[in-house]
C-alpha cells in the first residue's frame, strides 16, 4: 500500500475515505503516516492532513523549483471556485439542508433532480451553472444538465461514483479543501463573508416578521 499512497500523493491527489478508502485507512495508522512523511521529506514535501479526514502532499519550502506547480494547482482551484461554490449553494437549497457539503456526503441525482424540477428558481440556477466554464454545455434538458454537472464534478475530483450504474455520488476530500480555501480567501481578501451570513440571517428573520 505504501507505493500506491506515495504515488497518489506525488500525483497531487487528495486521499480521503471516499476517493481512496484503502489508502486512507493506511494513512490513518500513525506509523504509516510517519513512514510516508519520512519518504516525502527529502522531496521537500510533507504529509498534510485536514482534521484527519483528508491527506495531501504539500511542499515544505517554496522556491523557483516548485513555484510553477504550486501556481498551477492554485490556478485550478481559482478557476473551479465560482462554479463549485454555486453548485454547493444550489444543492443545499434543493435539499433544504443547513449543513455544508463535506467529504463522505451522499449526493443522489434522482433526489436532486426531483427537487430542481419542481422549483423554477433552482432550474434557473442550474441553467446559470451550465454557462460557467467548468460546467459549460449546450444541453437544455434539466436531467441532462444535472448529469453533466455531476460528471464534471466527478472528473474534477470533487465527487466519486462508487457504482457506475447507479446515480449515487459521494463527496470527496477535495470539497473540504475547497472550504478551507474559502475560509483562507475570506481572511486574506477581507471578504467579510461571516458578516454577510449574519446579515442574511437577519434579513431572513425580518422578512418572516413582515
Amino acid at each position, binding site marked *: 500500500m505504501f507505493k500506491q499512497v506515495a*504515488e497518489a500523493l*506525488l*500525483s*497531487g*491527489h487528495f486521499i480521503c475515505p471516499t476517493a481512496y478508502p484503502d489508502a486512507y485507512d493506511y494513512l490513518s495508522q500513525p506509523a504509516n503516516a510517519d513512514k510516508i512523511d519520512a519518504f516525502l521529506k527529502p522531496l521537500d*514535501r510533507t504529509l*498534510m492532513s485536514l482534521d484527519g479526514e483528508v491527506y*495531501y*502532499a*504539500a*511542499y*515544505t519550502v*517554496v522556491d523557483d523549483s*516548485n*513555484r510553477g*506547480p*504550486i*501556481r*498551477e*494547482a*492554485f*490556478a*485550478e482551484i*481559482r478557476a473551479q*471556485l*465560482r462554479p463549485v*461554490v*454555486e453548485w*454547493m*449553494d444550489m444543492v*443545499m437549497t434543493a435539499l433544504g*439542508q*443547513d*449543513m*455544508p*457539503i*463535506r467529504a463522505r456526503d451522499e449526493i443522489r441525482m434522482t433526489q436532486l433532480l426531483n427537487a430542481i424540477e419542481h422549483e423554477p428558481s433552482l432550474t434557473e440556477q442550474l441553467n446559470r451553472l451550465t454557462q460557467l466554464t467548468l460546467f459549460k454545455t449546450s444541453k437544455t434538458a434539466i436531467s441532462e444538465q444535472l448529469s453533466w454537472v455531476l460528471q464534471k464534478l466527478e472528473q474534477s475530483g470533487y465527487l466519486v461514483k462508487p457504482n457506475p450504474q447507479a446515480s449515487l455520488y459521494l463527496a470527496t476530500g477535495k470539497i473540504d479543501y475547497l*472550504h*478551507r*480555501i*474559502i*475560509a*483562507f*480567501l*475570506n481572511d*486574506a*481578501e477581507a*471578504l467579510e*463573508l*461571516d458578516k*454577510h*451570513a*449574519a446579515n*442574511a*440571517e437577519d434579513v431572513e428573520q425580518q422578512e418572516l416578521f413582515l
Partner: protein
Amino acid sequence: MSFDREQIAGLIRKLASADRLLAQTYIDGTVFVDDDNRTAIDSLKKAGIMRTADVSDEYRLTGDVKRLIDRLLLRNQRYQQAIDLGKMILTVEEDIEDYRRALERNDQDEARYHLEQIDDTLYEAIESLETSLSVMFAAITSQFGFVSSLNSKIRQNRRALAYAQRLVQELNQVDLNDCYDWLSWAAIPPELSRKIIRFIDQYKSIVERLTSIVARMKTLLFTLRLQEQTANRTRAMAQFLRQHPEWEPLDWSIETAAPELLRRGSGLNLFPGIDTANPVLQADLVEIVQELRRQTKPLAPPPRDNASAPLDTQMPEHIEYHRDLYESHIENLFASALERQGRSTSALQYWQGEGLEIKAELWLDMVFAQYCCLPQRMRSVVALEMQGENLSDFNGNQVIHEISLRQV
C-alpha cells in the same frame, strides 16, 4: 400490597393474548374500536392496559404500559430523567435503619422487605443514571442523528450538555463518605454490604463516564458550530460571487511566503520505465508483448509532448576520411627510414624539416608510442635508437633528446 401469583399470570396472559393489537397501538399511537377488537379492547381497558383517547372510539396504551415497552425496547428513550439523588440517599438511609431494627427484633419477613426496598432504590437510581448515560452516549455517537438539520443538532447538543452538567451537579450531592458510613455497622449482614459496595463502584464508574461525555459533548458542539460556520460561509460566498461577477481571487501562490494551505503542487506525472535487461522481469515482459500481439485493436500509445520536426530528404553526401595529421607524419618518418636503407634517420630533423607545430618532446613521445604499437614483424625491420641523459635519482631512466630510426 401483595399480589397472588395467579393475578400476575392473568395480567401477563392478557397482554400476550392481545399481542398484535397492542403492538399496532404502540406503533400507531392509537387504535380505533370496531366489531373485531371491541371485546379485546374492553378487557384491556379494564385491566388498565389501554385507555380512551380524545375521541370516544379511539384508544391508546396507558402510560405505564407504554413506558414499560419503551424501556424494554430502549426505544424513544429520553436521557433527561428526574433523578433526585438527595432524596434517594435519604430513602436508603431510612430503609437501612428500618432493616437494622427489624434484624434486631429478629423479624425476618420485615427485614427481607426492607432489604428489597434498599435493593430496588439503589438499582433504580443506578439504572436511570445508566439509561441517561447510554442514551446521551448514543446521541453523541450518532451526532444527534434523531434530528436532521444542523440547527436542531446544535440545539439538541446544547440542551444535552446543559442536562449533563446538571447531572454532574446532582451526582455531586452524593457524598461517598456517607455511603461508606452505611457500612460502619458492626453486625452488617453481607447481603447488605454487597449491595452498598456495588452501588459505590457503579456510582464511581458513572461519574467517570459522565465527565467524559461532557467533554465529548463540548467537542461535538464545537464541531457542529464549525460546520454551521462553513455552511453559512459557503452560502455567503455564493451570494458574494453573484454580486461580484468580475471578482477573482488574487494569485496568493506567487507570494514570497505562500501560505501553507496553498503549498500543494499540481502533481508529478509518473512514467515508470522497464528494465528489459533484468531477467526477473523478462517472463512478464514476454507475456505483455504476446498479449499486445493478440490484440485485434491495439491500444494507441499515450500522446507525447514531442514537437514535430520536418523530415530531412537530402541525399547523404560522401564525407572524406580525415586522417590524423601526426599519425601520417610518423608513418612518413618510418617510410623515410626504410628508404634510407640502413642509414639513420633523425626524428628531430624530420620535426624541424616539416615545421610541425607541436613541441619536440611531445613529437618524440608520439614517435616512440607509435613504434611500440607496430607489429613485431615491422619492429624487427626498423631499429629505434634513443639518445638522452640518465636521470640522477632513478636507475636506467632517461630524458630523451633524440630518436633515430634505421632499417635493420
